[in-house]
């Protein structure tokens, strides 16, 4: 196949990481730099010590060349994350509202801009790990509720969803196929009606 089977109907974590790299992040330039016209976006002209929002991947390049420091997002610190962790424990049936790419962005910043973060990396890593685990346990528990029709999964990030995706979709699809063997005869043409509903 022109696309290998492991990439069909599925994303890989590195692809999701790639997408997160285009998220905008605030930097504090150390020097001035002319603006850059890119295909995807534009990088505005940079002035020393004037905050600017640019795509994360470019921020990482500039950072690696000592051209800027990165202003960590407001959620990437111990106080905030601990609060979220407590919330995860307090509310066992909900996911706390972390940003949709918290795993990717934190991983990138911990690796490439740890000196810009307010808290020690090992402590950040450990609280992020705790968050990941408690949410994983929760989402797995929720998998008991799969059915043949639909489910709602609010509060999970794309990466977390993607990890569950093959399981959730395969099971739901099989339930649907089984269910269809009876539904067809009961509800007549219900399937066709929905085609031109809107």
């Amino acid at each position, binding site marked *: 196949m022109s696309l290998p089977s492991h990439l069909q109907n599925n994303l890989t974590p590195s692809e999701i990481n790639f997408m997160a790299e285009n998220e905008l992040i605030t930097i504090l330039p150390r020097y001035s730099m002319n603006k850059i016209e890119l295909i995807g976006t534009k990088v505005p002209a940079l002035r020393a010590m004037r905050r600017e929002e640019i795509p994360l991947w470019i921020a990482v390049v500039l950072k690696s060349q000592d051209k800027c420091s990165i202003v960590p997002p407001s959620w990437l610190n111990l106080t905030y994350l601990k609060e979220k962790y407590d919330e995860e424990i307090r509310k066992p049936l909900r996911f706390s509202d972390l940003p949709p790419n918290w795993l990717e962005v934190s991983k990138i910043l911990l690796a490439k801009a740890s000196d810009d973060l307010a808290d020690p990396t090992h402590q950040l890593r450990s609280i992020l790990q705790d968050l990941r685990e408690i949410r994983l346990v929760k989402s797995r528990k929720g998998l008991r509720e799969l059915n043949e029709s*639909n489910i709602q999964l609010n509060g999970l990030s794309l990466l977390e969803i993607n990890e569950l995706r093959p399981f959730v979709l395969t099971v739901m699809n099989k339930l*649907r196929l089984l269910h269809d063997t009876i539904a067809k005869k009961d509800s007549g043409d219900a399937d066709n009606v929905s085609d031109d509903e809107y």
Partner: protein
Amino acid sequence: MDIDDILQEFETATSRKETKKTPTTLYDELVVAMVNERMAPELLPFKHELLQKVLAQISNQQQFLLDSHEYGDVNAESGVVTGDFKLQLMIIETDIERINYLIRLYLRTRLSKIDKFTIFYINETADEDPDSKDRLLSSQEQKYMHQHFKILTRLYNNCFLKRLPHTLTLLDDTSGGQSMIVEPDLNQPVFVKSITDKPITISLGEDDELDLVNDGIYVVKYKLVRDYISIGDVVMI
């Protein structure tokens, strides 16, 4: 800083806030197109305009890189290549690579679906106006599909088909309760996210309904959200 720069920064700052949800940059559009194509069980309409725009821009940027490598920074005095300019070129090259990768995935995902449902799409596109702007396949894909079907048929013929009784040589037989034509299964469940403030209500059958709220994540049958995906109120994730 000159006034243009200030205005421009002001512009980008405001436009960013307003349009946070709908893809505005070419890059965002490409990502949505690629992910939708990856996740949808069927082939989605080819993004003719988007691809045309992006390919033209890539070729511009490539040319800019070539010129810059050869002649240096045309804006700088006396052709001096500063470290900053070099770094900018590197960022431009990386940007091209990133877009390149997205297009590669987008196109190859489409080919894999064309290969999976060849006869179905040959039939689907048979009556299309070849000059229409919203054809399902690009003209290259159309050519690929027909040619691939041809060499595949030749392979089957040479391996065994030509030695079978005439009645068994069809590849698009639908008789006897078994269709040979493989079609996309639009009832497959998919992950979607609503990205509009407008309320969306989808019918789940008899008298069951589901409201999709802004930012909500759902698993539903593809068929039920298909139209919302095509207008962009719902994206596949």
